[in-house]
């Protein structure tokens, strides 16, 4: 059994930010990431971020990832392993890790779970046909590996991810036939919607996908209009020939590893699904196991970074090795996080977090 003071699961914006603070606090840290490359989902985000300068606004996601990776590369007390999957977590902070064809056991004084999120799916006939992908998968395929997903795409969902990925498909030279949205209104920012409309992509609201058509892979989709009560309107069916369907209907926190240690969990729709109940320093009901980033509620990468910094600082303090500027930094990052959550999209997170805090005191 290999021992570490702190083990962080996940090398995305939250995990890397937590690692930086913990490393600066001189903790003996191990960060475990299952992907070939660090940076989480930032490595496929070619768009520029909003927010303040401190939150890396105006930088592209791919460049923020480089910065976060660069920030953690020179600490002797921080070990990072990629292509490694945590397959077991136990209440005594023992982890089993599948790495390089072997199972390795670790034990830590504290664990930070920064596993991020997974893409939601949609129920319709033939939804398992090859050619039907999550919007994030399409981004990964194009922007990380330089591979085109197909020739003609239909996007399902007009939230910010659906709109941004539509734009990125156009940038890569792929034809996007339309965006369909079951709700009567476009979900994402107007600025993104206008951009794709100007480029000729229609956004069909109150429309949903009824079924996918194809034998070995997707050949066409059948759409249908919805009324104000979300019921299908008979006779409004239309078939569109596409070889790729891109599903962008939101994300769910990756909570599974916390359920494994029997942490107290709660379904909070405002946070995207099932999340761990945490106290003021993001500690779960299992002593010394912490969580931060999208695993604790779906937000932007900017918020995940601020939460990561805060959780790294708080865990260092919890373990009795506070960061030299602990109090000042905690104050500052709290302030940044408050600013980020002040907008209309942040309200949802605040309501969700209030529910979590109430559950933690219950």
């Amino acid at each position, binding site marked *: 059994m290999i021992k570490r003071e702190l083990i962080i699961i996940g090398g995305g914006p939250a995990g890397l930010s937590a690692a930086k603070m913990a490393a600066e606090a001189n903790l003996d840290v191990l960060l475990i990431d299952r992907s070939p490359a660090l940076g989480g989902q930032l490595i496929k985000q070619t768009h520029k971020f909003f927010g303040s300068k401190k939150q890396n606004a105006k930088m592209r996601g791919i460049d923020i990832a480089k910065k976060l990776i660069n920030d953690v590369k020179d600490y002797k007390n921080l070990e990072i392993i990629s292509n490694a999957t945590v397959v077991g977590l136990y209440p005594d902070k023992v982890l089993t890790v599948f790495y390089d064809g072997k199972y390795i056991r670790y034990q830590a004084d504290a664990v930070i779970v920064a596993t991020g999120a997974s893409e939601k799916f949609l129920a319709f006939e033939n939804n398992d046909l090859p050619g039907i992908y999550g919007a994030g998968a399409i981004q*990964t395929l194009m922007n990380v590996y330089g591979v085109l997903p197909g020739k003609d795409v239909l996007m399902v969902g007009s939230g910010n991810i659906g709109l941004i990925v539509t734009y990125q498909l156009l940038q890569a030279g792929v034809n996007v036939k339309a965006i369909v949205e079951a709700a009567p209104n476009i979900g994402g920012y107007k600025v993104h919607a206008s951009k794709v409309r100007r480029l000729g992509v229609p956004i069909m609201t109150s429309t949903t996908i009824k079924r996918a058509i194809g034998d070995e892979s997707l050949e066409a989709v059948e759409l249908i209009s919805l009324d104000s009560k979300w019921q299908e309107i008979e006779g409004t069916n239309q078939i569109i020939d596409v070889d790729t369907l891109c599903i962008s209907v939101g994300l769910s926190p990756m909570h599974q590893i916390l359920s494994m240690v029997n942490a107290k969990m709660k379904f909070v729709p405002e946070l995207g699904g099932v999340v761990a109940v945490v106290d003021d320093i993001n500690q779960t009901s299992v002593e010394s196991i912490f969580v931060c980033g999208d695993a604790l509620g779906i937000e932007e990468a900017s918020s995940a970074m601020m939460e990561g910094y805060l959780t790294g600082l708080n865990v260092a303090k919890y373990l009795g090795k506070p960061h030299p500027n602990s109090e000042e930094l905690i104050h500052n990052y709290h302030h940044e996080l408050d600013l980020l959550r002040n907008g209309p999209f942040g309200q949802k997170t605040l309501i969700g977090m209030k529910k979590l805090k109430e559950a933690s005191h219950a």
Partner: protein
Amino acid sequence: MRIEQHPILNFEKKKEISFIFEGKQVIGYEGDTIASALHALGVKTLSYSIKDKRPRGFYCAIGNCASCHMIVNGVPNVRTCITPLTEGIKVERQHNKGVIK
């Protein structure tokens, strides 16, 4: 198909990596995962469902959904979307739950 020109990203041709897919020698590139290399070759079906033998491709491409499982060098249930492509590996479509030898 691969992206050749992009307004933001730069995809230079990298070193070729040859591997075996369903008994045939094919080519991918350094930096690919098994799934990205196959997709670039036009291969979307990575496995068949256990009961009804329906074709399956990847869904999430980041190791979450288990829809990209294939047999790699005889080992079943390999998440090909996050497994780096390496020279000479043998990749096969999976038709069952996978057998541990």
